[in-house]
C-alpha cells in the first residue's frame, strides 16, 4: 500500500535566490494493492511532480511517502517494487539502441544470473502478456515501432520484475492515437488482477474515469476533491471539478457553461491539509460547502 501524508514539494527558482515555488502542497491519499487510482489535473497542477516523487526521481520536501510502511527512496531495491511509465514513448527509448535494450537493462540490474535462453523466454512471455507478437517487436529500433507498441513494451518491462508492487503511469496514453489508446488502458486495468497498485496520472477526464475506482483531482498542487470515481464525477462538489467536467468535450452532449472557478475561495487546508468529508468516500476542499471547516 502506498501512503502519501501531507506530501509537499517546493522548488527553488534559482540556485542563489531565495524565492521558491510550491508545486505540490500537503497532498494525502493512499493507493491499496490491486487498486487503480486516477490523479487528474491540468498542466501546472503538480501531478507529474507527485508521480516523480513516488518514483524517487524527485526528492520530497516535506511530508511522508511510504510504500508498505517503508519510506520511498531511489535505488535498485526500491525499483524492484515500484516502476514508472511516462508520457512520450519515443522519449523513453534511447534512439541509438534497439528497443529491447530496456529489457536488457532490467536483466543486468536484477537478474544477472538468469541464462540468456531463460531470459529470452521471460521477455517473450511478458511481451505476449501485453498482446504483442515478439517476432514483430523484438530486435527492432524504436523508430520502427509505433507509439502504442512502445508503450506496451514499457508495460512488459515492468512485468519482468517479480516483486513489482506499484506502477506509476504518467500520461501514458496522451500521445497515442485514439484507436490504440483504450487498449493500453485496458492493459493497465488488467494489472489490478495481478495485485498491483496503479497510479494513473492524466489530464483527460474521460480516460481517468474509465479506469479507476478512486479519483484524486489536483489543482495548483493541492487536492480539491477526491473519493470514489462515481461520486466525484456523479456528484462533483468543488466548483473546479464541475468546471472541468463542463469543459470536457463529450460526444452528443452540449457544452454547458459551468460557474466560473475564479469565484471559488479555496479552503486553505491549513497545516493539516485536511479535506472535508462531504459524504462517505468523498472528500472536498471548498469553503463554500456547508460542513467545511472554512465555511
Amino acid at each position, binding site marked *: 500500500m502506498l501512503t502519501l501524508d501531507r506530501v509537499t514539494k517546493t522548488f527553488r527558482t534559482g*540556485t*542563489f535566490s531565495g524565492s521558491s515555488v510550491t508545486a505540490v502542497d500537503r497532498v494525502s491519499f493512499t493507493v491499496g494493492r490491486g487498486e487503480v487510482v486516477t490523479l487528474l489535473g491540468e498542466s501546472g497542477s503538480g501531478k507529474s511532480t507527485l508521480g*516523480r516523487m513516488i*518514483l524517487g*526521481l524527485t526528492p520530497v520536501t516535506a511530508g511522508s511517502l511510504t510504500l508498505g510502511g517503508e519510506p520511498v527512496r*531511489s*535505488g*535498485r531495491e526500491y*525499483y524492484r517494487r515500484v*516502476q*514508472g511509465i*511516462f*508520457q*512520450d*514513448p*519515443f*522519449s*523513453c*527509448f*534511447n*534512439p*541509438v*539502441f534497439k528497443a529491447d535494450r*530496456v529489457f536488457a*537493462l*532490467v536483466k*543486468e*540490474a*536484477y537478474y544477472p544470473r538468469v541464462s540468456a535462453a531463460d531470459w529470452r523466454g521471460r521477455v517473450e512471455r511478458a511481451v505476449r502478456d501485453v498482446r504483442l507478437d515478439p517476432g*514483430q517487436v523484438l530486435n527492432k*529500433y*524504436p*523508430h*520502427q*515501432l*509505433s*507509439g502504442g*507498441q512502445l508503450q506496451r513494451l*514499457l508495460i512488459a518491462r515492468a512485468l519482468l520484475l517479480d516483486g513489482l508492487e506499484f506502477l506509476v503511469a504518467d500520461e501514458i496514453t496522451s*500521445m*497515442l*492515437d485514439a484507436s490504440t489508446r483504450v487498449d493500453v488502458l485496458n492493459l493497465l486495468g488488467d494489472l489490478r488482477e495481478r495485485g498491483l497498485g496503479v497510479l494513473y496520472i492524466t489530464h483527460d477526464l474521460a480516460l481517468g474515469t474509465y479506469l479507476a475506482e478512486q479519483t484524486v483531482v489536483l489543482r495548483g498542487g493541492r487536492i480539491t476533491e477526491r473519493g470514489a470515481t462515481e461520486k466525484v464525477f456523479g456528484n462533483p462538489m468543488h466548483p473546479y471539478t464541475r468546471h472541468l467536467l463542463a469543459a470536457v468535450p463529450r460526444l452528443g452532449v452540449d457544452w454547458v457553461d459551468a460557474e466560473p472557478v475564479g469565484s471559488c475561495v479555496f479552503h486553505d487546508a491549513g497545516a493539516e491539509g485536511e479535506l472535508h468529508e462531504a459524504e462517505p468516500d468523498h472528500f472536498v476542499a471548498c469553503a463554500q460547502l456547508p460542513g467545511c471547516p472554512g465555511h
Partner: protein
Amino acid sequence: MNAMPPLGEPASEPVATAQPASDAGPPLASGAAEPSAPLSPTRETLHYALRNPKLLIGLAVVLVLLLTGLFGPLLLDGPDPNAYSGAQAVGPSGEHWFGTTTFGQDVFAQFVYGLRATFLVGVIGGGIAAVIAMLVGFFAGYRGGVLDEVLTMLTNIVLVIPSLAVLLIVNAYLGVRSVPVQGLFIGLTSWPWAARAIRAQTFSLRTRDFVDLARLSGSRTWKIIFREIAPNMSSYLFMTFILLFGGSILIASSLDFIGLGPTDSVSLGLMLQSAQQWSALQLGLWWWFVPPGVGITAVVGALYVANVGLDEVFNPKLRES
C-alpha cells in the same frame, strides 16, 4: 590559433531525435506492413557517409597527409630533418623536392617530420581538451544545481582569458620544449567552448524519459552519462573533437612562430618561424614558407570540411539541401 571553430555551437540540434507520433512529418508509418526493412541508425549513417563528398574529400586529404607524416620520414636518407644535406637556398628540384633552406637543409625532410609534430599536437591537445570538456560538460549538464553553477563559472573564466596569452606565459617560464608537453598545455586551455556546447547538449538530453527509465533500472549517474547520454551525442562529441584537433594545430603553430615551439623537433610552425627569422621573404625563398603553411591549412581545412560533411550525415535536416 582558431581555438574556437568557425562553426561555433551548431545551430541545429545534432542529437538523434526520434520522430514523435505526430502528424507533422511524412507518414512513414510504422509497423509490420513496411515493405523494405528500415535501416538501423548505424547502417543509415554509413549510407550517407559514403555518399557525402565533403566528408570523403576532407578525410582523403587528412589521410594522405597523415600517411605522408607517418611514412615520409622512412623514405628519407637520414634521421635528422635538420641535417645540412646539400646546396644552400636552391629551389625545388628532383633531388630536393621542396628545395633547401639558406643553410642547405632539405625543406621536404622538415615538412614530413613537421607533419608528424602537427598531427601529434592535434591528437594530444585535442584529446586532452575533449576529455576535460566532456567531464565538465557532462557533469555540469547532468547534475545541474550548484555543481553546474561552479563549473559554468569556471568555464566562462577560462573562456574569456585569451588562451594564447596564457600559453605564452606558461611556455616562457616553464620552457615547454617538446611536442607532447606543448599539446598538454594547449589541451588544458582550449576546452571551454567545447565544455559549454557539451553541457548544453547534456542539459537537453537529461530531461529525456530514457534517462529516468535508466534510473528506474537502478543505474547510477556515471553509468547514465556514459551509457545513455554519451552514445546519443557520439556524433556531436566526435565533431567537437575534430574541431579541437584543428584548433590545437593552429594554436601550436602560433606558439612555434612566436618562438615558443618545441626545441627538440621540427614542426610546420617552426619552419615558418625560421623562414621568417632568416628573411626567406626578402630573399624570395618561397619554397621555404609556402609548404608549411599549405600543410597546416590543408590539415585544418580538410578537417573542417570533413566536419561539415559529418554534420550533414548525422543531421537529417541538412541532408536534403
